[in-house]
């Protein structure tokens, strides 16, 4: 009971501290903007830990953060192998294939107004569909190693990137196109020097949506068959052994990988679209 009380006190303390910080004079400093969510996150983890101890929660239902952390420390090599199998081999290669495919199809479709008008609605329709459902089919076709995961990921990221790229390639005004014409620029110079660069904010929007989809696709596809390594495999087998702390350790890795993937994309976007109003 004493742990629960301490947890409640820490919660109140953290909240009060944040109220002070957010309404205080320094609330607009970049430092404070990082500190406040950090305090919030830390409070939740501490309260979680104390609640698990205080209520003697069965670790099969919810493990304490400390045991998850110790798993993260102990099982480093296994987690790294899973990370390589799922993220680097499955998700990343599929992501690259899907992106390249979508860009090529978008540029081809863009040459004809007719095709564009057809592909935009069909593509945004496909982007809303439960494409993860194709995972069992792909595993059957391509075997259980990373190729089938890459295929699922490629199909999942294809449509959001396609739709955004097609929309982005339309995003030049007639003044800009006329300027290129006065320079006697043909189709390809116009594409590479004007239209692709001005489509970049749209393309990155699609790429960022794709990062989460890629991880989901790679992990879910492993539930339907995988070699004895991989994050999805580890999640489902650790689950069978009731090693919930291992499951949570994989979740932490997946969360970090997802945020890092997204972060890298945002960083590249900042570099590439430095000229866009939203980045200045």
């Amino acid at each position, binding site marked *: 009971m004493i742990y629960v009380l301490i947890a409640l006190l820490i919660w109140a303390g953290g*909240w009060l501290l*944040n*109220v002070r*910080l*957010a*309404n205080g004079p320094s*609330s607009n400093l970049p430092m*404070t*903007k990082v500190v*406040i*969510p950090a*305090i*919030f*996150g830390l409070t939740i983890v501490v309260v979680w830990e104390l609640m698990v101890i205080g209520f003697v929660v069965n670790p*099969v*239902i919810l493990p304490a953060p400390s045991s998850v952390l110790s798993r993260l420390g102990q099982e480093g090599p296994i987690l790294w192998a899973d990370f390589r199998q799922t993220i680097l081999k499955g998700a990343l290669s599929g992501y690259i294939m899907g992106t390249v495919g979508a860009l090529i199809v978008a540029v081809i479709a863009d040459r004809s107004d*007719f*095709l*564009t*008008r*057809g*592909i*935009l*609605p*069909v593509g945004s*329709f496909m982007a*809303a*569909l*439960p494409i*993860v*459902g*194709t*995972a*069992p*089919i792909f595993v*059957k*076709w391509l075997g259980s190693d990373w190729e089938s995961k890459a295929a699922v990921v490629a199909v999942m990221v294809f449509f959001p990137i396609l739709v955004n790229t097609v929309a982005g390639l339309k995003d030049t005004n007639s003044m800009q196109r006329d300027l290129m014409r006065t320079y006697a620029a043909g189709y390809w110079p116009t594409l590479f020097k004007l239209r692709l660069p001005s489509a970049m904010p749209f393309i990155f929007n699609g790429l960022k949506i794709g*990062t*989460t989809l890629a*991880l*989901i696709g790679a*992990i*879910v596809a492993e*539930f*339907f068959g995988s070699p004895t390594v991989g994050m*999805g495999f580890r*999640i*489902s087998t650790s*689950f069978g052994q009731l090693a*919930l702390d291992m*499951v949570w350790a994989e*979740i932490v890795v*997946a*969360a970090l990988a*997802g*945020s890092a*993937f*997204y972060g890298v994309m945002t960083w590249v976007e900042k570099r590439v679209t430095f000229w866009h109003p939203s980045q200045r």
Partner: protein
Amino acid sequence: MVKSVLPVLTVVAAILGIWLLAVVPMNMHLVADQAQRDGAIVQPDTPAARQGVGGLTLAINNPDLISLAYSFKRPRLPSPQQVSGEMYKTIFQKKITSKRSLVYHGWVTLAPTLLGFVIGTGMGILLAVGIVYSRVMDRSVMPWAIVSQTIPILALAPMVIVVMGSMGIQGLFPKSLIAAYLSFFPVAVGMVKGLRSPSSMQLDLLRTYNASGVQGFWSLRLPASAPYLFASLKIGISASLVGTIVAELPTGARAGFGARMLVGDQYGQPLVSWAALFAAALTAAALVGLFSAIERVTLRRMGMDAA
């Protein structure tokens, strides 16, 4: 609207055409094996030798078997007419209470999706209101709401189901929880944007009217957020449906689209999987379409149809 009908039909026809062409090379080996067992003469004549040649070569060598590829019983890639036939059979020709009816399985999936979606949307809107009006919540919760979008939480849906099952909670609720979680953050993030969309001019005008905060919320912020809300609702409902289906996939669920996909896969009935997949796609399309229609009508009546 009318202008895009023909292009859309062309693209759909092209996809169907590619599909029809792909059926032959994908199934040719299986068809050839079966035909040989039935006593037909097949070139090349042993399964091992056939593995060495591609599906296309096999089709050219045995042109009389090509038509069989479209009606093969357990194909690797079923033909479009097989899938639509299976869907017709399981949607219209079975009683909707039957375990084989896709309508029954569709409802098993749809009910938790809708329940979860309603819960998630409600909570999302409440959180958004909290974030807009409380500086502390904005600063401490909003960054996490955005980060949580980048986490592949959907991949864990099956585990959540099993954990709750082991705690004795079964039925509608665990799946609704996942559907709610998945629609929660898109709605919250979109609504925060929407509630903040009134310009300072508009807010100042309300201040000159001496409007209270509550009045400002109901007559300016909430209406102004409608376009953002509908955009998030469309994302949220498809995310909820995907979440429910994934939750049904590897957990030994006995009913629902996800369970049908898995059953078809495990018991060698690819048609069942494919029919479930397409039925799920149609359901998603219908839900998104429904919200688009509501959006169009509502925004027009609010005088915002340009947006």
